[in-house]
């Protein structure tokens, strides 16, 4: 079957199996291999992309269900020569080791910071309304869908906090 998507701002069209996940469509059909397959079950977060601006596990999405949708992958945030603030912060803080979960961490953090700004509460929030603080407990809670077996967690969170402060 055929599905049209906008990926990183570009219109793309793929011919695919009905069972193809959005993750496999990105990786194997469009050659965007920055999104990683760590579990193919929505348990690790390495495949996180933005779907119409919201973070999703792309391994849990069927490509066929996303006709006309907008997808942003790690390749859409910045290139090695022109990294964005969050990517730069990950490098500066050593918020990764092997690098395999990193695209997912960065995509997830990108959306998470927007969720915070929009005042969406988390389990760690003291209140359901009002400004959410950008503290370590909030970031840790909101990033817990992204596993990192190298366990760069404290440094990932420092990088996110650093980038958020730069941006605000």
């Amino acid at each position, binding site marked *: 079957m055929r599905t049209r998507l906008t990926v990183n701002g570009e219109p793309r069209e793929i011919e695919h199996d009905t069972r193809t996940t959005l993750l496999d469509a990105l990786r194997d059909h469009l050659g965007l291999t920055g999104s990683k397959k760590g579990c193919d079950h929505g348990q690790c977060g390495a495949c996180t992309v933005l779907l119409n601006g919201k973070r999703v596990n792309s391994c849990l999405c069927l490509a066929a269900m996303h006709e006309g949708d907008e997808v942003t992958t790690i*390749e859409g945030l910045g290139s090695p020569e022109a990294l964005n603030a969050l990517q730069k912060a990950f490098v500066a803080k*050593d918020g990764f080791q092997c690098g395999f979960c990193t695209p997912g961490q960065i995509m997830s953090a990108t959306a998470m910071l927007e969720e915070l700004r929009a005042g969406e509460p988390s389990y760690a929030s003291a209140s359901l309304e009002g400004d959410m603080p950008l503290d370590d407990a909030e970031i840790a809670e909101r990033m817990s869908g992204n596993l990192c077996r190298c366990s760069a967690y404290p440094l990932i969170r420092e990088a996110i906090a650093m980038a958020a402060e730069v941006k605000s």
Partner: protein
Amino acid sequence: MTKTFRMDEAQPRLLDETGQGIIGAPLDRPEGPKKVSGRAAYAADGMPDNAAHGVLVRATIPRGRITGIDTASVAETPGLLGVFHGPRFIRNPAQGMAGEAPVQPGDEVHYHGQPIALVVAESFEAARDAAQRLVVSYDADANVDTDPAKTDALEKGDPETAGDFEAAFSKADVTLDRAYSTPPHAAAAMEPHAALAEWEGETLTLRGAQQMLKTNRLELADAVGIDPENVRILSPYIGGGFGSKLGIGPEAVSAALAARELRRPVRVVMARQTVFDAVLRRTETTQRLRLGADRSGRLLALSHDDRVTNLQDEGFAEPVSQASQFLYGAEGLSFAQTLARVSRTPSGSVRAPGEAVGMLALEQAMDELAEMLGMCPVELRLKNLPEKNPMTGQPFSATRLADCLRDGAERFGWKDRKPVGTRRDGEWYVGMGMASAARSNMLIESAARVRLSAEGAVVETDMTDIGTGTYAILGQIAAEMLGLPVEKVEVRLGDTRFPAAAGSGGSFGASSAGSATFLAAKAIRETLAERMGCEPSDLTLQNGMARGGNREVPLSELIDAELVEEASVEAGDTSESHFSSGFGAHFAEVAVHAYTGEVRVRRMLGVMAMGRILNEKTARSQALGGMIWGVGSALTEEMAHDPRTGHMVTRDLANYHVPAHADVPGDMTVVFLEERDDMANPIQTKGIGELGISGAGAAILNAVRNACGARIYDMPATPDRVIAAMDAAGY
């Protein structure tokens, strides 16, 4: 020509004399921009247009014989290219540094989950579908040993001893005799094992997720049945290893076999569940610790016996008591191991094999002994630090364990630790714990090539970077030695066409490949000194300038054609004359919920002395990662098998609980104490990757005890166990 250096005596500290000033500096990883932008290509990321997809099929019986693989059952699958199996398929990954094919069981099944066939199709979806539907018939064995507690297939080793343990134990004023158990652990690297195999005539190229290319090439060639000269392996980026990618695995061998037959590239990526089923795991252990001390707290007797498991024909047995054999001295020491053979996914090296589980028991026992003696746990350890390795009599090459213990206690605020069960924060008990850290250090034969031209330098070795920072540190070593800004050095790794290095394992990669890089660059310095007309010791190289013999010239003027040197290093007399180990001290503060038994780690500190630090930033990341593995082994990680079939039931990341962000406090501190290990290697370094985990979990469990009274003998400290232990202890 390769210059081979043998580590026979202490070497001068040349890296303290060179002028570039970047050794040890916390520089960013050079490959970082590629990793954070998704451009670093891992094994599964390069999919040529004509490549086919392979999916492994796993056995569904614990033991027996395959009587039929009914390819007709999937023949109608659109795009099916073939079902592959046969005598060259391997049963499980090779053990680290095996250098030959692992067991090739033919039609025999030895454990539930064993890869038995590969289904290849034009699309991943079709291959997966056919792999799930493929009908396999078996002749299953009755009475299979799948339960480690019940098997009679025991291989009992003779005790390793020093002095007379029984005599020393019987005269001790205070004795402790405890049993502990740890569950199997998974490496669970985020990248599932993957391989892309491609043939060109007789030559096989494998893009793989491999830690040790030198031996991986031999293993793959042996498994497939070809000359190693015809095998090239590429692993420039590896998505974590932790021991699970030390040896060649079923994904690589099956991809190679299918690609040869199909005459096109084949990619095989293990499903996460297959990674759990068919990749070497850490063994389950039962352990017995006996400690005897006099009233002053001097250890008289120490015995650490253990029982581990493995599948038949596997030579590996987790060296559980490794650290117990040298960390503390006593008059009588005894260590005995029993290996139980079971039909389960075989065990192998997972980060810090031995210390990772052995120190959970040893350091909890030391904590309990301190409590029985009414002594501070830090003091008990300080009182029992040996002058020499108590089993071998070798002097330590360098140890600052006492400094780590004192410095850590001071920084952590250890003096504020309260008696057991007396500190509360609302519904939470709060407590502190500590443990020693130790992980023995090695030098493994390694080679590297350094090229110097007017444009800069290039380092080439088949060494890998599994997240450890190899790209960063080899560049820093070469830049320091050649007086170049680090941006002028390119590091090329993970290709068997480069000089063969130790690979990533046993924490020896940086020391070994780093020493080879150092020696190759040193040989270039000698040529440059000759061209300057000075002694190498009078040569200063800094920021692209060479000084010596009363003159200063741009480095580029000394280089007409590219200078190329290859060097190799191997262990020598110092590994016999001295005993080298990294040492440290872990401190943890935890909160334990009084009613649910939930444990939250509030903060951790690791103070470590591990020789020269090559890059303070990547070293710190390694140490932090290890400490967080300690959180996992103490609190959440537990692989479970069905004792009836040996079937692994926790075969994904929702059931095997590695620490997530919310499990890890932001307040995690690592401190490195300055140290040089002159006996270890020519760059005075020690391994880092595994010291962080060694003892870390015990510090957390000791903090649980201090918080709420619960002593956890059967790990991990899940809420049910904590509640039961609190009840048992009367809290």
